[in-house]
């Protein structure tokens, strides 16, 4: 096989441009010109120089409203939540805004790295909110809402004032206040080309010593015994034939889980409507046996046994207060599907 780029380029040339005709004419009947409307519909990316950014604006105040309605359930009211995703806001200072380097990134004892600690280009934030948020309804925000939510996040980190209105006209100036705008480098050898400058040589140069190599074979880290079952019973994760078996790491925890599964099966409960839970994005906020944004299905089942009607109503209407501060928004789900999910919950939420 050829490995040098030059050799491959030559091979590519021979293979795909075998004669002089340019590729446009070589494959007649394949592909067509995209219409301007088609390109506009899909070409939504925004670059660091803000090429691609649509004109518009949004205020911090408007951003707060959108945030509380559409973002806070996953990210927390102040972007600080670690419940579902890593915290977005926090860890930056006014001094970082001046210097363009986030001081906490130098500390090895600082817990976690928020999005705004890492953000070096403002286009990245705008583009990602626009293309992928909210998580379970991506591309549903208006241009104004994207500007507004971006402004609200920047305000939480004191990058812009409370009365700020972010727009395509001032976004480049705000870029100059990003706390980590000077915090990235491309001086490394891990980009496969010369486009970014970079370095020719890898940063770590090891040698292949073969005999009596100067190493201390002292074990410095291994899993503690209490974590033996943290990844389940390893005996069940290895083939049952061959030179070795998986170690039996089944402990009390694993046994209890197995028993509870059997218990649920024995009651002959309604089967889990996994298709509906998936289709309606219930799984974005709820899980079977642990709290995510909302309560676990097991906890709901325990609290409301036999109350299918009540639960069907709550699923469609939403609510807040019963399970903590984070509200459950009203769900656009058919009555029939809500009833199916509710009956499953009311009958014990068997997995």
């Amino acid at each position, binding site marked *: 096989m050829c*490995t040098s780029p030059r050799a*491959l*380029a030559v*091979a*590519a040339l021979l293979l795909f*441009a075998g004669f002089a005709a340019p590729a446009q004419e070589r*494959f007649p009947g*394949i*592909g067509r*010109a*995209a219409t301007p409307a*088609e390109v506009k519909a899909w*070409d939504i990316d925004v*670059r*660091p120089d803000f090429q691609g950014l649509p004109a518009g604006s949004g205020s911090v105040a408007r951003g707060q409203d959108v945030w509380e309605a559409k973002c806070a359930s996953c990210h927390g009211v102040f972007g600080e939540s670690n*419940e*579902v995703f890593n915290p977005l806001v926090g860890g930056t200072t006014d001094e970082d805004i001046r210097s363009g380097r986030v001081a906490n990134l130098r500390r090895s004892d600082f817990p976690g790295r928020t*999005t705004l600690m*890492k953000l*070096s*280009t403002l286009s*990245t934030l705008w*583009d*990602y909110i626009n*293309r992928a948020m909210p*998580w379970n309804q*991506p591309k549903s925000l208006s241009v104004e809402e994207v500007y507004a939510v971006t402004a609200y996040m920047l305000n939480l980190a004191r990058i812009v004032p409370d009365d700020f209105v972010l727009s395509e006209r001032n976004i480049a100036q705000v870029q100059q206040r990003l706390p980590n705008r000077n*915090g*990235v*480098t*491309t001086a*490394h050898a*891990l980009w*496969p*080309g010369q486009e970014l400058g970079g370095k020719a040589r*890898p940063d*770590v140069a090891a040698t*292949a010593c*073969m005999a*009596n*190599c100067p190493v*201390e*074979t002292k*074990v*410095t880290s291994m*899993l503690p015994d209490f974590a033996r079952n943290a990844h*389940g019973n*390893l*005996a*069940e*994760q*290895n083939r*049952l*034939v*061959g030179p*070795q*078996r*998986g170690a*039996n*790491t089944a402990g009390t925890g694993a046994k209890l889980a197995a028993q509870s599964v059997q218990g649920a099966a024995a009651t002959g409960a309604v089967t889990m409507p996994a298709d509906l839970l998936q289709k309606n994005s219930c799984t974005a906020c709820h899980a079977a046996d642990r709290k995510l944004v909302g309560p676990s299905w097991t906890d709901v089942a325990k609290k409301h046994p036999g109350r299918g009607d009540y639960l069907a109503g709550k699923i469609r209407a939403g609510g807040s207060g019963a399970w903590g501060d984070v509200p459950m928004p009203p769900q656009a789900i058919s009555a029939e599907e809500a009833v199916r999910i509710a009956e499953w919950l009311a009958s014990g939420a068997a997995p």
Partner: protein
Amino acid sequence: MRTERVTFLPPSGRLIKAPEHFIAPDGVRQVFAEAKQGRRDFLRGAFAAAAAGVAGGAAMAQTEGDPAILQLPEHSRGLGRPVVSDGYGKPSQHERNVQRRQSPGLTQTAQASVSFAPLQSLFGIVTPSGLHFERHHQGWWDIDPSKHRFMVNGLVKTPKVFTMDEVMRLPSVSRFHFIECGANTGMEWGNVAVPTCQYTHGMLSCSEFTGVPLITLLQMAGADLKKGRFLLAEGADGSSMTRTIPMSLIESGEVLVAYGQNGEMLRPENGYPLRLVVPGVQGVSWVKYLRRVEVGDQPWATKDETIHYVDLLPDGQHRQYTSIQECKSVVTTPSGGQVLLDRGFYSITGLAWSGRGKVKRVDVSVDGGRNWRNARLQEPVMSKCLTRFNLDWVWDGKPAIIQSRATDDTGYVQPAGRQLRGVRGTRSIYHNNAIQSWLVQESGEVKNVHIA
């Protein structure tokens, strides 16, 4: 069956005997007593029960031999199942333990998450498509190929649209390449965090991919390759994953717009019906559900090039656009979480790969890195593809630390963890290609360890 096997292990665990030859003393006495009375059918039943109790092992009586040989099994005496019992065949029921799995506690949602390939149970270099590791950022979809479109725009003469039918009419190539997540082994930067090679290295898979070289499609649109030195690839799913791809790599002909995987179409979890294949580069750049590429004159600093997939250095700077997966290897047999059945011969085997080219050599140590031997490389050895290696080893029952160290054809040698951490610190997360150490304890149990 598995639990019975474990109960046969001697409690001290000094030497793990395979349960072959084992039958409880009571059973032996009874079998022989009954046999003397001529009750052959009872004898047969007792042997069958013993055989079942030891997970298919051979419970052997002193005189006659192995009942797995002496007592013809049902499959030798009956009629088997018909063709097309299942229009798409599945693995044996006895292979049920070989599954891709999530690492508990790693992610808080199942849609923005990872499942790891069971490297400890795979042979050769190809990952069965159903065991290919998964990484989704906003859940996966099974997209109708008749409604999927592929667009080329940006610095091109004519922006173009292709249907799947049209992409598949073009001349295709099929090539074997590994794909590794940039965060593979990321949980192990600071200390040991997971027990088995499925979790330490399982964000790694290798397939034969079939598709059209991207450069062909760019040329069909009349791309300006002089000015357009970067390309944005974008997915059609909710996350609309975007990554910047270097034009030099595309020009080499290596980057594919792929629809085939191991002889069939891509699996939905792996991007059906269309994904980008960027050999040697971390998996996040292999954009799934590929809907669009845009030619441009500067990189895009997308979310997964700015907030994630950036490598934090000790001085607080992040390395951006770190893409190549450097030379790396791991012993998959024996590996963490396994138990050797006895002393004696073992074939140490594992996988080696490099994002810069071919694997040139792999060395294996069983004494924690003091002495090394050349492993055999199994043919074929291909560029930016997994290479299988193996080495003979006789285990004497004493503790051993098994390691592998790969060298690629650029001369780059896979580093020890301390060398990597010496340059990049402990908080880098991505691109951990350190030498992996497996401690074989006297009990035969293998543990994931870091050594000084």
